[in-house]
C-alpha cells in the first residue's frame, strides 16, 4: 500500500487547508528506526481518512535539544523560523510522534508567538478509535503476549499524559504489565536533555541499561514506547542483554497499525 503524504505546500497550491499538521520531527524524518514509526502513523491517518499534511522540506528542528543543552539563541532562532512557516500555512492543530517536539511546540512556542493545539500521536489515535474511525481487527498478533509501556519523560511527567498510550495498549489482545517504576515514577531512558547527542558522563552503568532491566523484570514480550529517542535507547538496552529475539521494542503507533492490519 503506498502512503498518501501531502505537503502543506501542495495543499495550499490546491487551495485546501488540512485539519491537522503532522509534525514528523528529525528522528521521524531521518532515523531509520523512527521512520518506521512515522510510516505506521501515516498508515493509520490514511486508513481513517484524516485530512492532514506534513511540512516536508520546510520542517526544521523544533529546537528542543538546543534549548535543553543551554543554547537559547539557537532554540529561539529555530522556533521563530518554524512559527513563521506554521503561521504562513495558518496551522491550527499539530500532531507529532515525538514527545520532545510535542512539549516544545505545546509549551514553549506560545511565548514566542506560536499558538497551536498540539497533541501526541497516541492521543490522536485514541480519539480515532473512540470515534469509530479505526477498527482493530482481532487485536493483531499479540494474543497471549505481555506488553509493558515505558513512559517518555516529556509525555508523562512533563505533560501529564499517562492514560492515552495505556488505553491503546489495553485495546490490543494482550496483557499490559507495568514496570516497578512507571507513570510519575517512570525512569528516564537516558536520552532527554540533549543526552541523545552525547556520551554519558562517567558512572557505573548506562541509564538505558538500568531501564531495560526494569522492562526485562516484567517478562514482557514487547516494550512499547511513544518516543523515537526512548525507542533507540530501549532497543540498545535490549541488545545489551542479547535479548533481541525475546523482546521487541515498538512504538504504540506500530502496535496499533499492526492490530488494525495496516
Amino acid at each position, binding site marked *: 500500500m503506498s502512503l498518501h503524504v501531502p505537503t502543506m505546500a501542495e495543499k495550499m497550491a490546491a487551495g485546501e487547508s488540512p485539519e491537522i499538521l503532522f509534525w514528523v520531527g528529525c528522528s521521524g524524518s531521518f532515523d531509520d528506526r523512527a521512520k518506521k514509526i512515522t510510516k505506521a502513523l501515516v498508515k493509520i491517518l490514511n486508513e481513517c481518512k484524516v485530512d492532514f499534511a506534513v511540512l516536508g*522540506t520546510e520542517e526544521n528542528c523544533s529546537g528542543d535539544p538546543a534549548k535543553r543543552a543551554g543554547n537559547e539563541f539557537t532554540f529561539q532562532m529555530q522556533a521563530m523560523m518554524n512559527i513563521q512557516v506554521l503561521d504562513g500555512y495558518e496551522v491550527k492543530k499539530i500532531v507529532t510522534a515525538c514527545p520532545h517536539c510535542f512539549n516544545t511546540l505545546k509549551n514553549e512556542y506560545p511565548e514566542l508567538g506560536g499558538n497551536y493545539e498540539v497533541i501526541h500521536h497516541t492521543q490522536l489515535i485514541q480519539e480515532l478509535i473512540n470515534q469509530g474511525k479505526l477498527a482493530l481487527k482481532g487485536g493483531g498478533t499479540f494474543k497471549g503476549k505481555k506488553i509493558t509501556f515505558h513512559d517518555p519523560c516529556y509525555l508523562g*511527567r512533563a505533560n501529564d499524559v499517562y492514560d492515552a498510550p495505556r488505553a491503546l495498549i489495553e485495546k490490543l489482545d494482550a496483557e499490559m504489565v507495568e514496570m516497578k517504576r512507571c507513570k*510519575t515514577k517512570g525512569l528516564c531512558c537516558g536520552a532527554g536533555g540533549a543526552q541523545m*547527542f552525547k556520551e554519558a558522563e562517567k*558512572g557505573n552503568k548506562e541509564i538505558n541499561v538500568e531501564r531495560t532491566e526494569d522492562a526485562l523484570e516484567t517478562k514482557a514480550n514487547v516494550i512499547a514506547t511513544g518516543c523515537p529517542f526512548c525507542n533507540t535507547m530501549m532497543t540498545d538496552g535490549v541488545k545489551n542483554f542479547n535479548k533481541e529475539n525475546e523482546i521487541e521494542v515498538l512504538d504504540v503507533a506500530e502496535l496499533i497499525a499492526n492490530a488494525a492490519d495496516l
Partner: protein
Amino acid sequence: MVSIAAFAIISLAGFGFFAWNMLKIRQNIRLGRDIDRSDNKGERWKTMTLVALGQKKMFTRPIPALLHFAIYAAFVITQIELIEIVVDGLSGNHRVFREALGGFYTFMVSFIEILSLLALIATVIFLARRNLLKLPRLNMKEMNGWPKMDANLILFMEIVLVCCIFTMNGADEVLYNRGISHAADLGEGSLGFSLSSYLGPFIFGDMNDGTLHTLERIGWWGHIAMVFAFLNYLPYSKHLHILFAFPNTYYSNLEAKGRLTNMESVTTEVKLMMDPTADPFAAPAEGAAEPQRFGAKDATDLTWKNLLDSYSCTECGRCTSSCPANVTGKLLSPRKIMMDTRDRIEEIGNNVRKHGKDHDDGKSLLGDYITQEEIWACTSCNACVQECPVNIDPLSIIVDLRRYLVMEESKMPTELTGMLTNIENNGAPWQFSPADRLNWKDEA
C-alpha cells in the same frame, strides 16, 4: 516575679534573635533575580494547602510519610500548649487554660500526649533509619559531616522536647494527686491526661514533694527552652523546611513541568536578527534594562524562587534517589545542587553585609560548588521535580547553569557543539540535508 522576668527576657531574646536571622535570610533570597509568581492566587493557595499542609506528595512513600505525619501533627498541635506556656510564663499562672476550658482542656492535652508518644516513636525509628539501617538516600556522600550531624541533632532535640513534656505532666499529675499542684483543684483527684495520669504515678509516684516540684519546673522550663533553642536553630539548619514549605509551595511553578522558561533577553536579540529593517548599530533605547548575564554562573544569577527552594530543602534525598544519572553512578545529585545553592547564597549574603554589595570573593556557584560534570549528566527528566515533597525545582538551576556555560563561555561537551552546529546549518541535530527530509515517504 524573678521567673516572670526571666521568662520575658528569654522570650524576647528568643524571638528577637530568630527575627534577626530571618531578616538576613530574606535579604539573601532577595539577592536573586526577579520572577513573577503573583498570578493565580487561588491555585497557589490550593497547592500550598494540599502539598504543604496536607503533605500530599509525602504519601507516595507511605512508611516515612506516616512517621513524618506523626511528628508533624504533634508539632502543630503542641503549639496550643505552647500558647498556654507563654501565658503562664508571663502571668505567673499555672495551667491557666484548664479552668476556662474544663473538659476540652483535658481532651486537648490528652491528644497532645498521644501525638507526642507517636512522635517519639517516629523519631526513634527515624534515628534508626539514618544510623542503623543506613538508608542509602540518607547516607550519600553529600551528607557527610554537618548535614548528617544536623539531621541527628534535630531528632535528638525532638526526643528531649517530648521527654520534657512527659516529665512536666507526669510530675504535675503526682502533685495533683497529693493536692499540692499549682493547677487549680477542680476536685477530680487527677489531671486526667491520657498518658501522664498513668505514667506520672508509675515513674514519679515514690518521689517527695520537693523533688516533684523541681522536676515539674525542669520539665516546664526545659520545654520552653527547647522550643526557643529549636526556633533559633532553624535558620542554620535544613529543618527550616517546617516554615518554608508553606511559602515555597505557594510560589510553586504552576506551568507544565516540561516547559523551560523563555529568555526574554534572547527573544529581543533574535527578533532584531530576524528583522531586515533593524539597525544593528542603533543605540539601546533610553531606559532599557542593563544587559544581564545569560544564564547563571553564581547564586545571585538565579531567581529568588531558586534561592527560596534552596532554603526549603530538608535534604531528604527523594530527588537524588529518583535521578537516573545518580542511580547509575554519575556525579549529579539534585539534592547537592540545592545544598550548594544555599551554602553559596549564605556566603554571598554574609559578604554583602560585611564588605558591601559589590564585593567579589573570587568564587562562584558554578566551579567552586557545582562542577560542569554534574550539570552535563542531567537528562532533564523532571523526576527530581516530581519527587520533591515541597515542590523544589533543581532542574531550573541546572538549565540556567548550562545556559551560562554555553552562551557566555561556549563550554560544552564537543558532541553538543556538533549537534548545535547541525541544527544551525541544516535544521536537524544530525548531519542530514534538509532536502532529504521527506525521503521516507518513498522508501519501502
